[in-house]
């Protein structure tokens, strides 16, 4: 069964996705599965272990179950100053 999530990208992910936000309807049920899916589609260079995911504005584990309508942020650390 598919669920729909709102995804938000930061930093290099935003650059590579060429958008900062998108809605995705998918059978993925964890951030891990979801990232693998969007990574393949957008060609993200960063592996998941360099990123964090936040679900509904709280940092979360990669294997938490996602619910329909969740807001999901993929975010890498940034270094500029």
């Amino acid at each position, binding site marked *: 069964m598919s669920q729909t999530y709102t995804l938000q990208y930061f930093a290099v992910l935003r650059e590579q996705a060429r958008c900062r936000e998108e809605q995705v309807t998918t059978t993925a049920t964890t951030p891990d599965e979801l990232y693998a899916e969007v990574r393949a589609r957008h060609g993200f260079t960063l592996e998941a272990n360099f990123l964090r995911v936040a679900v509904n504005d709280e940092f979360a584990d990669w294997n938490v179950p996602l619910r329909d309508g969740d807001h999901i942020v993929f975010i890498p650390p940034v270094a*500029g100053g």
Partner: protein
Amino acid sequence: MSSSSIATPGAETSPDAGGAFSFRVSEDPIDVPAEQATLGDPGAGGYVAFEGWVRETNEGRRVVRLAYEAYPMLANREGRRIIEEARQRFGLKSASCIHRTGLLEIGGLAVWVGVSAAHRGEAFAACRYIIDEVKHRVPVWKQEFYEDGDSGWVNCERCAAAAGPSHGNATSTAANASHGHTHAHSHGHAHDHAHDHDHDHGHGHGHAQPAAVTDAPVPSRLPDYARQMALPEVGAAGQAKLGAAKVLVIGCGGLGVPVATYLAGAGIGSLTLVDPDVLEATNLHRQIAYAAADCGQAKVLLLAARLRALNPSIGLHTHAEAADAALLDALVPRHDVVVDCTDRLSVKFAVNDAAVRHGIPAVLASVHQYEGQVQVVRPGGSCLRCVWPQAPRDGVVGNCAEAGVLGPVPGLVGTWQAFEVLRLLLGLEAPREGVLTVDLLAGQTRFLRAPRAADCPEHALKHSVAPGAPLELPSLAEGLARGLCVVDVRDATEAAANPLPVAHHHLPMATLLKDLKQLPATENGWLFVCVRGIRSRSVAEACREAGHAAAYSLSGGAPH
């Protein structure tokens, strides 16, 4: 010093001046007879010299040695101006001054002035004038090493004059009155101080307005904090907290400039600036406290001069070096807040680690193109490693040079950091734990909550490890005595050929370095073992670089 580009008419030494007129800073000991020999002039009727020596006490603290650091180009330019002023004012036959840099012991000759003139009156007055002005205006920083092992940077004197009578001691002398402004320090010795290093009242006027030349009174204005004290949450009590606070700013770039500038304006008692870089032309679009003419000069000195001009009443300390773990361990515990404004992830993690280790709050931030991230780390709260357990290597995520950035982005994010510092110091509404993201292109902020991670390696280990602990241990017994978890990093064949005689984990180096999360859980840290102690040392170093301070290598490898 942004003001150093302003020319002072007639300040260069004239070629037709007759005898020798010179000023220089020198790393080498001063050869007094040789210097004196350069002053000979047939028209001279007298010669006066002054020697400044390193004294053993300052403000009641016993000083064991001193190190002077100068920015030679600036120091020599200002010094030559002073010599030229003395030549014009007193009609000298010759004048020379040398200021030492580098390490000096008690009794060492720190500064030498020699002048010759037709008559003794001018010679005495000129010698006095030169030493006073050199101490007051030439940008030489002094690091005092105290008997208790502590040390502090002191701006050599060109400071107290601006603060005037309200800040200095009461030893103004006739010489001060003679050139129209008030020196608030005594002149009899090169190392007298009107204040200790934590109350180092700086002022940046020296280059632009040589007060002794113009005879104009030096303005003694100081910031008035009335507008911030009007806030009910600040008031006099809040202002006193700010005035007593010491803040460490790591990085004087796009973030560090607004951080340090707002904090200086707010009247933070003491700011310490750390940055190894010189100003480059590519910095200016976002590092707007600097001046194009100052490219090539050390940022810490330039920014310190700018901050002194903004607020002469604050203490300023500079370290023109990279912030490594050793420097952070020396500096962080002496401050109330540390602010990371660097563009290197490895330094951000080092700052985070030092802050956690010493229980000092940290305000961390970074920018990327149109975005920024700000995280406030408070003692006992979540830290950078709670959010990013695996620190990416430098270069993985890009920096301003690689990714590009518009100037206002670090300007805004750094300003946010400055606010968070004031929030911490004033005890305003507590910051939430997590990462604030700012996207200027989208006009959005988003706060991502990050509770403290139960398995954060930083919190688990750092408190138990002494800073700068040696990397190698001499024996397995020593490791066991420390309760370390022994990890064999040899490959399977090697391990089978010479098994360790103690309980241990086996993780070949190549496997382990792929992901340090494989490290076995331990309360006290790890002792790595290989055949000869080379691979295990690399693994221990990699662990420490990743923030696991309690990583050790068995010297010489597995026992045979």
